[in-house]
């Protein structure tokens, strides 16, 4: 007779414990029920839209406008800096944990210029493994059980699991379309100030802001940011501002840093990304900038999670930043030239989608575009009902049109999925040949449907 129950040991019956331990010794672990489950903090956090959709789209015959990664080349000087660095011995060893000195110096210079305030490279900046790592460090440092965190829907999907992993409660508020669902621009999507105010209470530790916004491409205006700022100040709430697309704003729009509003620097952690700034998502370098009294806690998380980021990549990034820092007043600066390049891709993408009978929401920033696919009336009722419409649509589109996108309900809390399931997200930071291939599919779309 074999007893595997751990509870048995807790009862403290020594004789049975001895029998138990002897029988455990002689059994193989395969016959014991495995008690080592996941920890509570990651309960329910194992599934992930990317794991599902990057697999599906990995087929090279599929035109991949799904996951947000550029297939354009990073600027040559960025690649060259990394090549130069590879030859320097000491750059293959550990650097300063909280950020390579030349990189934090460069970041402080660039952002001092942008923010109009002094930023101490050693105390006000933390370099992390991508903006993703900054989000994690910020949330682990400042959020815990009993806290509520306001998340604006649709949201970059990691916010919700990260908040949950920290033991806190996500509180959602949707962007709502102003014109009764007829949306031509990302600017049509707004927060209802009264609805937003209602979400704040004594437990609200932070609000996560993402501007320019993924997936809609909204660039929050000064007035909109002021509404959020006023509430943060009133309720003594922190602001986690994900600004990875900060340089990608299109004509007529301006990216405003909420941390520059009165009363906000002291309560805001602003997050940026090398991957998005320089089209090098695979470098996985990001940063958090804010007041020392907040950043020091992120640094504690960092020193207890991965300690340092790779040295050669940080050095190369620092050198790239110096190149562009020197020309920040020049239109040739990559921060502005990339934006111009993407604006024409955006316009082309929008045109193609319209011609196929789809309704794109033109983004004011970022490199994603959401599209209302309900106008196509594709009947997917016979497909597995458990998934939202947009999941089914994207899978159908991948299979039958060889074109991939990401379903928008992946970016929503449970209750809002219905509101967004007619939208899918396209990424347009793609080289011309990719967009050409997409064009072929979209032009032929109506020939095969109906």
């Amino acid at each position: 007779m074999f007893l595997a129950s751990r509870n048995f040991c807790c009862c403290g019956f020594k004789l049975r414990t001895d029998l138990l331990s002897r029988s455990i010794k002689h059994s193989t672990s395969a016959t014991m029920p495995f008690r080592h489950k996941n920890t509570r903090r990651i309960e329910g956090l194992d599934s992930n839209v990317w794991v599902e959709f990057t697999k599906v789209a990995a087929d090279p015959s599929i035109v991949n406008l799904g996951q947000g990664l550029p297939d354009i080349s990073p600027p040559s000087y960025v690649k060259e800096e990394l090549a130069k660095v590879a030859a320097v011995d000491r750059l293959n060893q550990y650097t300063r944990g909280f950020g390579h000195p030349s990189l934090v110096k460069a970041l402080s210079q660039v952002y001092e210029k942008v923010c109009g305030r002094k930023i101490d490279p050693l105390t006000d900046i933390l370099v992390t493994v991508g903006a993703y790592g900054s989000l994690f460090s910020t949330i682990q440092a400042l959020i815990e059980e009993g806290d509520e965190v306001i998340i604006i829907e649709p949201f970059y999907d990691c916010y919700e699991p990260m908040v949950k992993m920290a033991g806190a409660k996500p509180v959602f508020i949707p962007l709502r379309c102003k014109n009764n669902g007829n949306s031509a621009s990302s600017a049509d999507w707004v927060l209802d100030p009264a609805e937003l105010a209602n979400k704040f209470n004594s437990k609200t530790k932070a609000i996560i802001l993402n501007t320019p916004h993924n997936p809609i491409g909204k660039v929050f205006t000064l007035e909109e940011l002021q509404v959020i700022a006023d509430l943060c100040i009133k309720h003594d709430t922190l602001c986690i501002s994900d600004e990875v697309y900060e340089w990608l704003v299109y004509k007529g729009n301006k990216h405003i840093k909420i941390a520059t509003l009165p009363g906000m620097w002291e309560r805001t952690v602003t997050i940026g990304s090398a991957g998005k700034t320089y089209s090098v998502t695979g470098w996985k370098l990001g940063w958090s900038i804010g007041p020392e009294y907040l950043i020091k806690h992120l640094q504690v998380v960092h020193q207890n999670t991965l300690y340092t980021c790779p040295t050669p990549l940080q050095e190369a990034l620092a050198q790239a930043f110096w190149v562009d820092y020197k020309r920040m007043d020049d239109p040739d600066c990559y921060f502005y030239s990339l934006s111009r390049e993407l604006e024409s891709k955006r316009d082309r993408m929008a045109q193609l989608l319209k011609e196929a009978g789809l309704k794109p929401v033109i983004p004011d920033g970022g490199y994603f575009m959401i599209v209302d696919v309900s106008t196509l009336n594709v009947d997917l009722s016979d497909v597995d009902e458990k998934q939202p419409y947009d999941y089914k649509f994207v899978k159908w589109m991948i299979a039958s049109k060889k074109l991939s996108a990401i379903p928008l309900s992946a970016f929503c809390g449970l209750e809002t999925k219905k509101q967004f399931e007619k939208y899918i997200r396209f990424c347009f930071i793609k080289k011309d040949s990719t967009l050409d291939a997409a064009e072929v599919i979209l032009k032929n779309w109506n020939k095969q449907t109906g």
Partner: protein
Amino acid sequence: MRLNSPTCGLQQPHLARTALELLIFYLQAKMSRPVQARRLEGIDKNIWVEFVNLAATYSKVNLGQGFPDFPAPDFLTEALTRALGGGNHMLHQYTRAFGHPPLVKVLAQFFEKLLGRDLDPMTNVMVTVGAYQALFCCFQALVDEGDEVIIIEPFFDCYEPMVKMAGGTPVFVPLRPNPPKDGKLMSSADWQLDPAELASKFSERTKAIVLNSPNNPLGKVFSREELGLIAELCVKHDVLCISDEVYEWLVYDGKQHIRIASLQGMWDRTVIIGSAGKTFSATGWKVGWAVGPDRLLQHLRTVHQNSVYHCATIAQEAVAQGFQRELMLYGKPESYFVQLPKELQQKRDWLVQSLDGVGMKPIIPEGTYFLVADISPFKSDVPDVPNSDEPYDSRFAKWMVKNKGLAAIPLSAFYSEAHKNNYTNFIRFCFAKEEATLKAASDILQKWKQKKTSS
């Protein structure tokens, strides 16, 4: 420390008293709570921040922090250059989150050989940002509040705060020195666990034991018998083993590194952690990995996808090529895994001689690139300060770097708070250094000794 003072309700005196009190209570509660999360309690201090700073400021010879001052091997840096020059600019974009396919494939191939079992690169291997992040994923994935985790002292210092951050309780068990009777220099093998003492640390709350072999800082390479003892207890108590094997290739004197996962009943309960930084002398690349059964790695993957998600592509690409080379040369004299320990053994012997020559008593390490030495004959330079908060060896190491320009790390850095004063006379030296560095260290020591003898 939050920012605002409560103002709202006080301007409306007609509010019901209890409602007003409630409001003030909520606002004050928010105000009096610290801004940071409780999980950071007690883990904010870090020895490296202080000692790395001191070394940067004062040291002429840095034998402190563990990184080589000799270059990474050419074949590795060339692999990076090739990857960059190859025209595949997609190497600058995201790769597979759980590990770049060429890297997980070659790691699976390598470890299949070493462990004698089939491995699936997709489910039995995960790439992390250094072994450090692999450790983090293990604790976050597997250690819950109330769980106990056994840590063998002295230990690589991050284990304790990581266990605490996961809400676990570290339970310490020491390696105890049994000096050889013949007055010869101690070996790291002379530091041993007491089997009964170890067994007594296992309780029904024990979730895992952290094993580090070869051990930092002592350099101990656990023998088959010692591993067998640990394995037996793990199986008996159904406890997991987090096996930090970053120095797996750095073993000397013909010793063998034995992987605990290859012992009976251990594969299913062990996560093996490795490091490209240590394997290929490129600590700044921050590429590490976890190898283990899917039923454990799946939870590490969940943590990983919710914390960093991807690791840098190009470093993984180059490390994959490094491993491919080593796979082809495995066991041959040109293998880096054969050459590096050979070179390091010589450096070890050189440093042992230098230290012994001036009266510091080194503990000869069986592995790693660290050695710990007893600095007793030099204690007179740094008088004891009774009732000092700081352990003696820490004060000694600070004095040494400031006054002699020689950086090393106090052994107390590798002990829990309660045990930091157990050994007051030991400091750790890193010998993964160029000959010139080791010679310069020797010169400093000689001059120091002469100064003492003549004064």
